[in-house]
């Protein structure tokens, strides 16, 4: 029987045409409720987007970069202070040595 239906006969073509006609007549565009359309638009425009994984990743990279930069700045600051202090120490030591030298030169030999 199935084999018979699969053969391209005039009757089978008629059935297909009838099906197409039935689909055309039965399937009509439906309109969504106006309240639903307005309500959904309102919800969409006021909805706060949750942070996506990508946003979280961006935030994490930014935070890590900020932390590393902060630590580097702090280390550089500390090193600068140490350098200034050590330079001052060297200068002060040099002055002291120079003063001692002068004092010893001025002091008469006993």
């Amino acid at each position, binding site marked *: 029987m199935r084999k018979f239906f699969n053969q391209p006969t005039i009757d089978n073509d008629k059935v297909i045409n009838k*099906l197409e006609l039935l689909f055309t007549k039965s*399937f009509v*565009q439906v309109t969504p409720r106006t309240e639903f359309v307005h309500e959904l638009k309102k919800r969409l425009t006021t909805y706060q987007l949750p942070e996506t994984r990508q946003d979280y990743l961006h935030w994490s990279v930014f935070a890590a970069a900020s932390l590393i930069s902060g630590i580097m700045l702090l280390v550089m600051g500390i090193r600068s202070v140490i350098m200034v202090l050590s330079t001052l120490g060297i200068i002060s030591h040099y002055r002291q040595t120079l003063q001692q030298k002068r004092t010893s030169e001025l002091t008469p030999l006993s």
Partner: protein
Amino acid sequence: VKELSDELVLAQASRGDREAFGELYQRYVGRIYNYIYYRTGSVHDAEDLTARVFFRAMRHIPNYKDRGLPFSAWLYRIAHNLVANWHRDNNRRKEISLDDSIIGKHEGDHPEQELVSLEERENLFKLLHSLPADRQHLIILKFIEQMSNAEIGQVMGKTEGAVKSLYHRTLLALRNEYQNINHVP
């Protein structure tokens, strides 16, 4: 925004412009609702899934890449996936109450439908829901959205020839089923 082309509105929406997204929503909500309505057979589920489609679209629109396909193709793809999940998760296909849904609902609104008997329409919707998802998609786009094979191809990601062939095979399958249901000799 209302006068701009889809591409321009889409570009604005993908930069986070809510007004632009609202315009895209206005342009496509009817089509997406229709598609889901005919796939689920219920107003309540069609509204719920339509809302989900647009919320998902809004979340992912910044990542939207224009591949030369119409924007509707992207929305239909989201709708198609959500309807597939809906059927799979809840196994509701069997629960669709045809009396409560499409069959009798629009009789008053659309007098032309009255020409088709209630029984015939009921059988037709049973036939539609018995089809695999991609074939239901094709029939809905063809008869409800009245798209050409080329347009359906763009939406479904197939060539025009492939759509034509799938449509023919679908009609042959439907014919056999229709003959069985209506006891056509």
